């Protein structure tokens, strides 16, 4: 009976991942991260993604501070921040975040202020969507582990 919980949770995880891939939110580089996880590093994906969140939020905060400043003119700095976001998003397989960062970066290269503001909003939106999805995934996985742990190998 308890085994059903695990299977159902596993199905939920698969479904969520499938959906994220289908939407283009994640790409195959996310799978690469999973390949790097094993018994010697069982929380690798979780750890890397959390570091990605911390780094990204710092960058997004800085971007917003730069852009809301009335006397803003440092498009180059915006570009540098975005390079970092593009790189790290790409490394973890966050395809959609990466793509909208690239679009934002193009606006900054043209010194297009309203374009940058729009770009920032889109990136923030996509980023938060990704973060929520990852949290859901991690929660499901936690539950699955707990459910699996209840089974006794007799």
């Amino acid at each position: 009976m308890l085994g059903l919980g695990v299977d159902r949770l596993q199905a939920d995880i698969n479904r969520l991942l499938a959906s994220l891939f289908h939407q283009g939110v994640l790409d195959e580089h996310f799978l690469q991260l999973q390949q790097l996880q094993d018994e010697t590093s069982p929380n690798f994906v979780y750890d890397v993604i959390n570091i990605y969140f911390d780094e990204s939020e710092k960058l997004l905060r800085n971007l917003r501070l730069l852009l809301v400043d009335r006397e803003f003119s440092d498009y180059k700095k915006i570009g540098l921040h975005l390079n970092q976001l593009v790189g790290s998003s790409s490394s973890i397989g966050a395809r959609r975040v990466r793509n909208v960062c690239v679009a934002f970066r193009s606006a900054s290269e043209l010194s297009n202020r309203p374009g940058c503001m729009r770009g920032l909003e889109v990136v923030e939106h996509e980023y938060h969507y990704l973060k929520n999805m990852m949290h859901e995934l991690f929660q499901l996985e936690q539950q699955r582990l707990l459910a699996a742990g209840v089974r006794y190998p007799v």
Partner: protein
Amino acid sequence: MGKEKKQIDGGVSCLRRAEMNMMSVGGMESAPAPLDLEEVHVLAVDDSLVDRIVIERLLRITSCKVTAVDSGWRALEFLGLDNDKASAQLDRLKVDLIITDYCMPGMTGYELLKKIKESSNFREVPVVIMSSENVMTRIDRCLEEGAQDFLLKPVKLADVKRLRSHLATKDVKLSTGNKRKLPEDSDSVTITPPSPSLTISPESSPPLTISPHSSDSSSSLVEMFSSSPIDDDEDEDVLTSSPEESPIRRQKMRSPGLD
């Protein structure tokens, strides 16, 4: 988990907690891992924390010892090349491969490459450049300056395995007399053998397993999506060869000094 991040200060970064836990809980009790006496030591250089952690993991999984630094300057400092006098430490420093990001603030990977090739102590060490941009002129420049290989980011496990196998070939050719070993480190990283699972579940599958049946989770999802159109980064000057692989295979890894 937060503690681990705060310790990362651009010197040596690592996610050691899992590995240390395994060792302290008696992870060494099972069959001993084959000892790799001639352990490959890689110096990884990348200003991005996320990328540093990923490349470090990629290298450790392929049985390399890794030192990861966040800038070209720190790399030179580590190698003892940051000033003109030779450091006494050099006799004990063994670096078999340097892998560096191209785009870094301050000193680019290209500039680092040049400095390494200019040094008498390290010019024979293979240097691999990583870049998220597939720009022919950039690749050519690096290869002309003596880079061994150029990897497109995000770097894949297959890329690192390939690098590793080249290094293994080189090791076989070199006599051990040429190699200067580091003193035995108590925290030198090796792949710990799998320890007995601490949970009572019959399968110790890692988090985010997407297949209920095997722990080889990635293959099933890849199969599920092999037909979906996953576009790759399309930049200008894209090579016609598959972007999944390192674009350049012009140079093989050379055995320094023996050809």
